C-alpha cells in the first residue's frame, strides 16, 4: 500500500492479507528500527511506546524526524 513518508509517497508492505502494518513495522521497513527518531501520524505525535499499537493505513501521512543542527 502507499503512504506519505516525510512528504513523499512510499510503498510499504502489508502485515498480511488485508492487514495494515503498525507504525513500528513501517519504521522497520524504512530502515529506522532502533534509530533516534520521533514520529507523527497524520499530524499527531505517536510516542515510541505506542508505535507497535498504531495501525498505518493507505494514504496516511507519516513524519519521521531526527536530531539536527539548530539555533
Amino acid at each position: 500500500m502507499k503512504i506519505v513518508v516525510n512528504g513523499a509517497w512510499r510503498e510499504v508492505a502489508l502485515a498480511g492479507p488485508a492487514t495494515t502494518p503498525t507504525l513500528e513495522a513501517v519504521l522497520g521497513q524504512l530502515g529506522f528500527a532502533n534509530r533516534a527518531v520521533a514520529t507523527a501520524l497524520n499530524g499527531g505525535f505517536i510516542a515510541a511506546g505506542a508505535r507497535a499499537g498504531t495501525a498505518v493505513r493507505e494514504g496516511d501521512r507519516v513524519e519521521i524526524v531526527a536530531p539536527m543542527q539548530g539555533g
Partner: protein
Amino acid sequence: MQHEQRMLRLYDLELSSRLLLGTARYPSPALLAEAVRASGTAVVTVALRREAGGELAGQGFWSLIRTLGVNVLPNTAGCHSVKEAVTTAHMAREVFATSWIKLEVIGEDDTLHPDVFGLVEAARILSEEGFQVLPYCTEDLVAADRLINAGCRVLMPWAAPIGSGRGLNNPFGLKALRAHFQVPLIIDAGIGTPSHAAAAMEAGFDAVLINTAVAQAHQPVQMARAFALAVEAGRAAYLAGPIEPRDLAVPSTPVIGKAFLA
C-alpha cells in the same frame, strides 16, 4: 549581590557558563565540536528535522553532540502554529530525553518575529504538560508577563532578528524588561559580535545564546572563545556596577592642588 554571583540556574539545572551556543550553520561537524569546547558552554541548542533517505545524518549529528558532554536545549524552530510547536515539543522530549524546550512560534517570515499570542498559548499547554519552557520572545513587557503567568520560569527575548547580527536593537526596551522581571533572561537572536554580548551582560541579562555569529565567522573556534571572554567580562562588569553616562566632562584628575602656572 550575593545571589547574583551564583551560577546561572535554568529551572532545575545550574550551569557553569552564561553562554549558550547554537549548533547550526558551521562549516563542518569538527568545527562545531571544537567551537563548543572553545566556548566553554554548558548548553547547546538542537532541532528536529525530517531524516532523509538512508544517510541517517541526524544519527551522526546526535552521536557527535553526545560526545561533547553538554546539556541540549531542543527548539521548535520554524513552527508557525501552536499545534506544530506543541507536537514538535513532544517529539523533542522523547528524542532528546529532556523537558526543556526552546519554544518558537514564528509569526512573520521576513523578520522571524515571534507570534507572541501563539507563544503564550503553546507555553501554557506545554507548561501544564510538565515541560520546562524557554520561550523565544520579544522585549514586549505584557507578552513577557503573560508568558510567566503561563508557567515560563525563563524568558529568551531577542536582541534583533535571528541571524541578523545587528546587536541590541532596542536597548531601552530590553533594559525595561530586565528591570521588570526577576526570572532568568537570556538574550536570544541577533547578536553579531562579542561587544554586543558584553553589552547584553552589562545590562544585567543572565546569559546570551549565540549561533550564526560564531558559526559563520571566518574562524568559528576563535570567535567562540571571543564570545566566552565577552560574556564573562560583561557579567563581571554588571556585578561591579557600571557608572551612569553623563553629558558633560568630569575631570578624573583632582582639580584641587593643581599648580598655578598661568
